[in-house]
């Protein structure tokens, strides 16, 4: 069920806020969000300087229509929040979340700062990132600690690997249990699961566009909606991979048409051999000629709900793409006007 504050997160770059050339140039990459990092990519000596940059960086990263997001430090939560909760910020990532009380404390501080700084209550979401074994063990408690937690995931990646003492990119899924615990908590609480199907990766490369598209495409087909990365090369492939294509949109309309017929007949499901259908002008099912898994289709209320969600998601993607295109065009027009 789409949340009233739902923001699209198909693509997003995480970058050190202290590296000006990254922050200044990120706006034209087409990201759904830009994650300004105060944490691991910022050296300890620069934490104070990093904080001083956040407020003025928000309009810079917003220029191309991207949402402003911040990653704060686990151990510097209060000071960091004071520096990042400003109008325009929509989401604060809290790394290595381990206990519900940490999230409740964040919620209190954000609630106060929203009031003091004229931000509509409840605007700012908390990204409670699970990156340790303790975090996995307390996943449900953490996810349920604040209504600001709207999507939820983790339990893999470098921090998790460090905590477990394992090497990554070993070719099999090392994190089945932890990812399962976290996703079950997310689903039990009706939060958007921040998850993806497992794809073996033995390179650990962060800049491979083909791989980024393949992963985003597989994640979308599996029902997931959230991406993000570290390198500009992966932004466009993620936007494309997480956006439904025309064939899927036609298929969703076809499913809903068939479901309406089913409902009239007082049946709960029907199985359709799509190769027995004669193609018409209207919407039709996905082509099963190169994917035999798609030949026999079941139509029922679950498939109908999935189709309706896909159409809603496609509409949100189209709206978001238009929003970003217009923002980037406005910046370029202004620059052209300045130049002449």
């Amino acid at each position: 069920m789409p949340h009233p504050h739902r923001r699209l997160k198909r693509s997003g770059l995480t970058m050190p806020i202290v590296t000006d050339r990254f922050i200044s140039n990120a706006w034209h990459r087409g990201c759904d969000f830009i994650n300004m990092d105060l944490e691991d990519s910022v050296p300890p000596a620069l934490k104070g300087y990093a904080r001083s940059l956040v407020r003025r960086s928000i309009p810079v990263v917003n220029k191309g229509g991207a949402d402003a997001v911040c990653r704060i430090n686990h151990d510097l939560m209060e000071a960091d929040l004071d520096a990042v909760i400003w109008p325009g910020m929509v989401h604060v990532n809290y790394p290595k979340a381990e206990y519900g009380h940490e999230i409740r404390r964040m919620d209190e501080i954000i609630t106060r700062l929203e009031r003091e700084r004229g931000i509509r209550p409840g605007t700012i979401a908390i990204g409670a990132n699970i990156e340790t074994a303790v975090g996995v063990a307390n996943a449900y408690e953490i996810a349920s600690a604040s209504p600001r937690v709207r999507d939820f995931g983790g339990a893999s990646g470098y921090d998790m690997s460090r905590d477990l003492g394992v090497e990554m990119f070993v070719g099999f899924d090392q994190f089945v249990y932890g990812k399962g615990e976290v996703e079950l908590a997310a689903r039990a609480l009706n939060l958007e699961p921040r998850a993806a199907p497992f794809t073996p990766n033995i390179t650990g490369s962060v800049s491979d566009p083909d791989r980024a598209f393949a992963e985003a495409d597989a994640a979308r087909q599996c029902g997931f909606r959230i991406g993000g990365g570290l390198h500009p090369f992966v932004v466009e492939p993620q936007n494309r991979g997480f956006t439904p294509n025309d064939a899927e949109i036609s298929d969703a309309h076809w499913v809903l048409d068939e479901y309406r017929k089913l409902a009239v007949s007082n049946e709960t499901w029907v199985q359709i051999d799509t190769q027995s259908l004669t193609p018409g002008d209207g919407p039709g099912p996905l082509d099963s000629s190169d994917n035999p898994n798609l030949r026999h289709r079941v139509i029922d209320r679950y498939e109908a709900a999935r189709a309706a969600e896909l159409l809603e998601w496609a509409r949100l993607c189209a709206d978001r793409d238009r929003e970003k295109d217009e923002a980037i065009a406005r910046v370029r027009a202004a620059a052209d006007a300045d130049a002449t």
Partner: protein
Amino acid sequence: MPAANQIRRSWLLVPASAAPRIASAPASGADVIILDLAEFVAEPNKPDARDAVPAALDSVKAGGAEVFVRIDPQLMLADLNAAIRPGVAGVVVSRLESAAQIAEAAALIDRLESQRGLLPNSVEVVASLETAAGNHNGFEIATASPRVTALTLGRADLAMDLRPEPSGEIHLMQYLMQRLITLAAATGKLPLGAWWRAPDRGLLATPENTLAAAQRGRAIGFRGSMCVLDNQVAPLNDGFTPTAAEVAEADAIQSAYAAAVQSGAASVVHAGGRALTPNLVRQYAQVSALAAACAIREEFKSAALSGRPIPLP
């Protein structure tokens, strides 16, 4: 050794509103037939479906199947009122979310058992943990009433919108299946399910894929599974029964172990290159016992279907 009445490999779901399905079900060979009042009965058909339960309870057991009724937890009073009658072995509560729902069902069943002359505490409850909340609360649900005898994920893949991954595995199901099996064993319940993979829609799979799903399911600890089509029953019965080759291997290993122990050899003996420990032998002993119990169950059903006298185990 499991008693014959605990052999419940195939659970055929039949909409209580579908007279032709009720008529064909006894010949399917199902260990259990579930008269469905929930998922497969369209809302306008529910009153007629409930009215059909008493007669169906009687007619579907002609093939020796035990009979359960699947109910909707939001319509519990009306559904249980239709279901709790002499001849019903239990109810399947679909789409469970909380232990409170089990407590509510148990209290209603207490009353209906007493009003309708059923033995107290005779009606079982199968908890269908289809939702994420139901799985999250699984331990509390399983232990909420001694009536709960079995746990299943039911159609969790649909209720939780879990889809196939590129590997063909249904996302999250490996975790959910093994979690459910662990939970069931920890609380002494029968774990029901099969290891379904794409492209089949789980309960609607072809006979071949149903057999494979049952075999994979048995390998990780499931003891039986629900299905929707009559032609899935035989594959489930087969898939949840040890094969002749498995029984032969199990018997051979037990004999070799017994001989080694008797001859006073060290307690770890080798046969076919394997280290035989008591725990390994314990695994194989259960294969033989399960196969024997399945044979008794088959004999019982075949006698019931043909009208022969029921053999005593």
